């Protein structure tokens, strides 16, 4: 291994190899680009759902909604996670990314798959939403795109294990992984299991769309699809929690108070999280009630317990670290003196609070039989997952970006003032959007619906007038979120291109 290919980051002290640096950079660039596209689609969809604007024509609404789900949920999040794979399995350990060609194969497959999906959707040959419930049929190339992307992601997650095995050989670590890497190990294990479900459902569906297989059972499709669709949210949770711990370490020097506790919590995710996937099927025919109860139970809610543990351990690690820095007066001096102006820090705090209170709690509630029947497919569900995957994961990843740009791109952030308000703007926007959606949904307003005044329907129905306020709340929140998202994209790309180059040793 040529030592000259390593550099030491002057800010973090990390030993960074050229191979990892390039892989991380390109995965991040792809992530930011897909977030930009996905966010723009989100804004257009939002402006259509907002009754007083009702922007798009009907076909475009469904088309862009399909693209929004795929670009934001699939592409942005997973590209970022593959960047995290290399960050935690090489950079944190001070070793390189091994078999780099494989990393590039993964990246290329994801890129080609993502481009194919977007092309087919924009051409209007896959107006099927990201769930593509059979027998709604898309162009075979759409399913092919999803498969290419998923295979790329699968290789990406496998790469984690290749890296750590070889890193151990080269002395990157002796006994245990750092906690951040441990979290990504959990994410990668879940990722591999999840993407296996993806193959199990998208391969037959591809064949069916090419008329090779006559039919796909809609109920079986839903079961296996959510083995992919729900479990993959747990990749996001693990990666997000790992980012929380790592940010606490980088920004305030936080140390997990008890490694045993935090690691056990990650193991609980791996073991039990798949026992939640069936909450998507609570009001489906076919499955028995007891089957549903068991498979929505998170195994006695032990996977939820894991989140409760992290919710304790991470703020505790910050408090201990800040008190060590001398902020010991009273109960809360440490909190007052925390680096609120640092968007990496504030972003992570916002992510923790919103994920817990908006996304997490509603998830556990809506995942029960009795709530599913009064919330299924209403706007409340969309509100719930904008609390988890946007207010939680996306904000955490945005916050970590503010660290990765100097560490990995060797650039200073541009517009530091704007950067320090960005997480607040985006967080406030998404929280308002999400609460507006949840409230409207509780009155029965459906998700994925072009016109809740039902123009052209044989019978007219009017929702409770209270929804006007909640739909406007969603609209205003969404516009704020879009502004915050746009600001993020400007800062990220602006810093990569125009940021001041940093001196390196």
């Amino acid at each position: 291994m040529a030592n000259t290919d390593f550099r030491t980051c002057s800010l973090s002290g990390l030993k960074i190899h050229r191979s990892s640096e390039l892989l991380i950079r390109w995965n991040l660039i792809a992530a930011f680009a897909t977030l930009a596209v996905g966010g723009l689609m989100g804004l257009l969809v939002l402006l259509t759902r907002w009754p007083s604007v009702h922007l798009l024509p009907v076909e475009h609404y469904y088309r862009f909604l399909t693209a929004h789900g795929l670009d934001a949920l699939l592409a942005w999040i997973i590209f970022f996670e593959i960047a995290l794979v290399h960050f935690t399995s090489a950079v944190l350990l001070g070793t390189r990314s091994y078999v780099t060609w494989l990393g590039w194969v993964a990246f290329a497959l994801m890129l080609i798959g993502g481009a194919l999906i977007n092309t087919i959707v924009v051409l209007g040959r896959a107006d099927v939403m990201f769930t593509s419930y059979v027998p709604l049929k898309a162009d075979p190339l759409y399913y092919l795109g999803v498969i290419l992307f998923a295979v790329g992601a699968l290789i990406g997650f496998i790469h984690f294990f290749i890296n750590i095995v070889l890193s151990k050989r080269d002395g990157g670590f002796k006994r245990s992984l750092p906690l951040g890497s441990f979290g990504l190990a959990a994410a990668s294990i879940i990722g591999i299991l999840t993407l296996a479900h993806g193959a199990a459902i998208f391969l037959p569906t591809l064949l069916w769309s090419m008329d090779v297989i006559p039919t796909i059972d809609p109920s079986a499709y839903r079961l296996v699809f959510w083995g992919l669709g729900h479990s993959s949210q747990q990749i996001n949770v693990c990666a997000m929690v790992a980012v929380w711990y790592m940010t606490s370490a980088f920004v305030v020097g936080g140390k997990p108070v008890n490694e045993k506790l935090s690691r056990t919590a990650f193991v609980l995710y791996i073991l039990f999280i798949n026992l939640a996937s069936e909450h998507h099927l609570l009001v489906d025919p076919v499955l028995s009630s007891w089957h549903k109860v068991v498979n929505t139970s998170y195994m006695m809610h032990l996977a939820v317990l894991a989140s409760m543990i992290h919710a304790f351990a991470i703020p505790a690690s910050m408090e201990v670290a800040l008190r060590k820095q001398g902020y010991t007066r009273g109960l809360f001096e440490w909190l007052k003196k925390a680096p609120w102006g640092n968007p990496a820090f504030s972003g992570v705090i916002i992510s923790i609070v919103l994920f817990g209170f908006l996304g997490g709690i509603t998830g556990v509630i809506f995942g029960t039989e009795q709530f599913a029947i009064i919330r299924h497919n209403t706007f409340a569900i969309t509100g719930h997952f904008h609390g988890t995957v946007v207010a939680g994961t996306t904000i955490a990843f945005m916050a970590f970006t503010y660290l990765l740009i100097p560490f990995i791109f060797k650039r200073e952030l541009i517009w530091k003032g704007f950067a320090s308000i960005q997480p607040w703007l985006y967080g406030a926007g998404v929280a308002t959007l999400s609460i507006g959606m949840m409230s409207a949904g509780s009155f029965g307003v459906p998700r994925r619906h072009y016109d809740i005044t039902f123009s052209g329907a044989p019978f007219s129905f009017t929702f409770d007038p209270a929804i006007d306020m909640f739909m406007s709340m969603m609209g205003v929140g969404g516009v704020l979120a879009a502004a915050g998202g746009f600001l993020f994209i400007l800062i990220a790309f602006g810093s990569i291109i125009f940021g001041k180059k940093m001196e390196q040793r």
Partner: protein
Amino acid sequence: MAIHEPERIWWNPLSKDERVWVGVALIWMLVSFIFMPVYHLVGSQNPPSTTYSVKADDFDKLVEGMVGKYKVGEENGFPVVHPDPSEPVFIRASMWQWYPILELEKGKTYKVHLSSIDIQHGFSLQPINMNLMALPGYDYVIKLTPTSTGEFHIVCNEYCGVGHHTMVGKMYVK
């Protein structure tokens, strides 16, 4: 630190704060978990689970049979049907209608059979906001006892193509 390898021995006992937190959280989790089966047994808001498999043609015949026997009127081209509670009742989802219009009696218990003859639809009864999936090939049986009278609407809340937002049906309880 989360970014460094932990010290040699990291399998340390939990401190008191941690034990209290984990203990309280665990109890909370167990209580909320136990209520899942408990509510299923004592509650009255459970999603049904009786299902038969059915071919679209056969389901269609059952629907038309009921309409032929119990039709009492017509509204916007949709038959209004007043079925006998002792017989099965059918609701058919298709792109993009809920067929027919049922007229039920308050306090009587019906077995409502729900199915789709083309793609997936979402049965969303408003304004009470009761939501169930209608899948092609499956007959989902809902034991329904209306408790209030009036006019109800069925909205489709699973995306089913460009006409999705026009898929509104009606139901009366007398």
